[in-house]
């Protein structure tokens, strides 16, 4: 198993609060790794820390065999990591087209093909191309956020709770898309919706109180009802 991203004994604070105590996990290339855990366990902080939006106080984050902890966010992004934040991070005054264009590092044939591919998956974005991002529905915003992270050729996508606040039918669509993206890129997913996580994920890590407490293959987790109940509240 060749790992694309590896976190070892990562600790992080938000102001004076010690949020991450001991995070350890690896993201194998070509797979979907899911971070599971209850609200407030530290999943979002973990993604933000990988992206350099939150400082690492201890430990290491290695991406493609290079230490990236405490590097600036734009440098980390340019190493090949795309990020879809929990709040989607849509630029409300920019149109759908502008939101995508601002993210495009190049405007070459390859990027255009990726854009066309993602627009075929999300035809709504094509339909509302000139509509301001702030006027989209929650589902459309999520589709735009995912498209924006995908439009550049990234080696790894960090996606934070893509199903949050969405109607079941939209969740289904987002899930289908991530499954299709899985064929083309490696994904680290934070997800509370266990049904979605179990369908998409290849392996999982459970974070509890800022520590990785359990990991394994997603198929194994589905069988372990006690573990699911203890850490995820799923029965």
């Amino acid at each position, binding site marked *: 198993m060749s790992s694309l991203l590896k976190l070892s004994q990562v600790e992080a604070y938000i102001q004076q609060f010690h949020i991450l105590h001991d995070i350890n996990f690896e993201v194998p290339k070509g797979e979907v790794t899911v971070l599971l855990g209850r609200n407030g366990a530290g999943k979002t902080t973990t993604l933000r820390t990988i992206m350099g939006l939150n400082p690492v106080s201890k430990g290491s984050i290695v991406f493609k065999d290079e230490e990236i902890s405490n590097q*600036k966010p734009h440098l980390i992004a340019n190493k090949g990591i795309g990020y879809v934040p929990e709040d989607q991070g849509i630029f409300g005054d920019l149109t759908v087209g502008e*939101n995508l264009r601002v993210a495009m590092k190049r405007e070459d044939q390859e990027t255009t093909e990726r854009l066309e591919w993602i627009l075929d998956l999300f035809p709504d974005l094509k339909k509302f191309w000139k509509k301001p991002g702030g006027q989209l529905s929650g589902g459309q915003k999520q589709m735009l956020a995912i498209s924006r992270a995908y439009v550049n050729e990234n080696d790894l996508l960090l996606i934070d709770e893509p199903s949050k606040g969405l109607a079941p039918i939209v969740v289904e669509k987002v899930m289908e898309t991530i499954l299709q993206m899985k064929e083309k890129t490696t994904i680290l997913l934070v997800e509370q919706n266990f049904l979605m996580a179990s369908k998409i994920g290849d392996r999982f890590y459970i974070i509890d109180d800022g520590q990785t407490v359990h990991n394994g293959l997603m198929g194994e987790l589905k069988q372990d009802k006690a573990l699911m109940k203890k850490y995820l509240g799923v029965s």
Partner: protein
Amino acid sequence: MDLIASLTVNGLATGMLIFLLAAGLTLIFGLMSVLNFAHGGLFIWGAYAGVWIYYITNSFLLAIIVAIITGLVLGLITERLIIRPVYGNHIQQILITLGFMLVLQELIKVVFGPDQKAVHPPAWLEGSFQMGDVILIKYRLFIIAIGLLLFLTIYLILKKTRIGLIVRAGVMDREMVQTLGINIRFVFMAVFMVGAALAALSGVLHAPYSGVIYAEMGLEFSILAFIVVVIGGMGSFTGSLFAAILVGLAQAFMAYYVPALSLAVNMLIMTVVLIFRPQGLFKVKG
């Protein structure tokens, strides 16, 4: 009718000068949440550096170029040495930039002397046109034209180019912009320098308009620019244009009809806007 036309041209010219000063300020605040009270210092340095060259060469075009270069250089120095250490702390920003504003103001007196300096428009911009009963002063029309030209240029850059998209996106959510692989600090420095150059340009254009320059006018004008930024909406470039024109016109008409209220009118407009639209006339959506 001729009086109204004349007051309108006056108001528009003043509005354009304030707009040039406020445009940089609103982008700087919107992009990096920095309260730069030293902006008026850049205005006054642009005025003095430009007028100095104007005295020596008698070329107003050269004066404008030197003012812009002065603004760019001072903008770079201000961002690197004064602003960078106090990112994220508004109280420190106000204190240090206000202090730097006073330093810039006093340095003007050291370098150029404490006396006021009289400035006349260049020969090609002196005089007026007559349209019916209305007399239009050439230099004021020139200021309005320059203001509109710069507004359109910057507006098109912001709307049509990727760098413009990055700046607008940065105003809305600078953290997200960084995660797209964009060095927002570099973008900010560039915007800061452009904002400083606009302030300096405003200063040199203001010199022949008011006929005299003095070190303290930077602070007076920067207060006006802040009022405009608040009225227009923090971070809104178009909002700044509308607010600057509104303030310019209100000042011109009040100065004629109710002189006692000419200084208070800006505060009154700001108060009314803040009561009914606390986010300003144009809101930037994140």
